[in-house]
């Protein structure tokens, strides 16, 4: 069994454990079963943050060291981060409908910043697609990976800057009001999602490396240089036409 499959199985197991704790945790009186969405919503938001943090760090490392592995990590982490962001957005919207009576609220800074974070990193992927040269692609997207990152802390503190519907920062607070069992359920899901992240990353980076190697090989195999395709003109033909 290869490394990816093992990691995948561990991730699956961790998610099942997380769901078990999530199912066990006590419910909020007001929201009932809807509370359980939290165990997907909050970990995926946090993992999205983590993904983009990893991209941020890997981008700096690429600029400093120029090792292709950093570029692969940066790219893969964005792909995974975009997935988690989408998950956080979707679960948030599903949660919001019964709780606030709307899928989406304007002016809610948390939703806005999260949505825009999503768009910027989609832009990151679009940028990568539009640059064919590997070194150029890596460097430019590294700069974007650094610049875009400032939306992440902004998304986190946005609830402080603009007070609206979304829950304030509750978990990470010295006087955290969270019930022990809920905290356990939350943290076990965060742990499970982290393993999922690692599993995705190992597959994504392996794919990226494989693609690079394939590129190298086919470049080596493609022995005829560009210039060889151009031949002398056929002057006789010109006179004939």
């Amino acid at each position, binding site marked *: 069994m290869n490394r990816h499959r093992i990691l995948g199985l561990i991730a699956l197991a961790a998610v099942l454990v997380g769901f078990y704790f999530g199912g066990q945790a006590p419910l909020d009186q007001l929201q009932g079963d809807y509370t359980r969405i939290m165990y997907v919503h909050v970990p995926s938001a946090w993992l999205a943050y983590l993904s983009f943090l990893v991209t941020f760090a890997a981008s700096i490392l690429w*600029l400093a060291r120029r090792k292709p592995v950093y570029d692969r990590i940066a790219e893969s982490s964005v792909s995974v981060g975009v997935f988690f962001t989408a998950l956080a957005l979707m679960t948030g919207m599903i949660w919001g409908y019964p709780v606030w009576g709307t899928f989406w609220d304007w002016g809610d*800074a948390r939703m*806005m*910043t999260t949505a*825009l*974070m999503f*768009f*910027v990193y989609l*832009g990151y992927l*679009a*940028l990568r697609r*539009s*640059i064919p040269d590997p*070194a*150029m692609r*890596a*460097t*430019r997207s*590294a*700069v*974007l990976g*650094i*610049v*875009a990152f*400032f*939306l992440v802390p*902004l998304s986190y503190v*946005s609830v*402080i*800057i*603009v007070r609206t519907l979304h829950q304030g920062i509750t978990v990470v607070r010295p006087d955290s009001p969270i019930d022990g069992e809920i905290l356990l359920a939350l943290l076990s899901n965060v742990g499970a999602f982290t393993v999922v992240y690692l599993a995705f990353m190992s597959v994504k980076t392996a794919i990226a490396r494989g693609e690079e190697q394939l590129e190298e090989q086919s470049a080596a195999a493609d022995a005829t240089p560009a210039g060889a395709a151009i031949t002398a003109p056929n002057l006789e033909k010109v006179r004939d036409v």
Partner: protein
Amino acid sequence: MSGPSFWGQAYEIGLKDLRVEGRTGEVLNITIPFGAVALLLIPLAIGTDRPLIASIGPGMFWVVTLLFGMLVTFRQSATESSANREMMVLLGVDPAAQFAGRVVASVLLLLVFEGVLAPATIILYNPDPVEGWAILILVLLLMAVGLALIGTLASGITAGLRSRNTLAPLLVAPLALPLLVGASQTYEALAQKSSILTPILLLLAVVLGLAVVGVLTARFLEEASR
């Protein structure tokens, strides 16, 4: 023959940008009227409800400044052909100085842009008056600097790509979100006479952060532009 200092280089670059702008007159003669037209169109599309229009006035001003201000900051990258960029590399121009020169030129143009559109908004939308002109001017300034920084960075990231014209705005709009939030929150706070500290600090932090990132990454972007 060692050439001018960092700021000397930045000055030459900025001056050149402004001179090209002077020849084409894009910002002054064209982007400004266009921004004004957009401000005019919005109430038409929404309807004639006077208080509604007054209440969305400031917000629309920020959105229009952001969307059309972007055009102002991109204008520069359009004037640089790849041959010109390569020439600057071989002249040994410090990429950070290039960045600085461009940003300063853009800031000046954006201030003119804002200086025309702000009164236009007041006339067209007739928003509820607020106290604190000095602070509003500070916000306008921070917005101009922030937009110039983001626009110049985005131009650098997308320089020379075929999809530049549309990819760059896509990157700028979300990145400019903190500016938009900071500016509109400051205005709200002024209107409600509550504390303006948080949004102003947000604006300042964003502007400073972008400036540092821009200067530090300029070299890499230049290298990757070929």
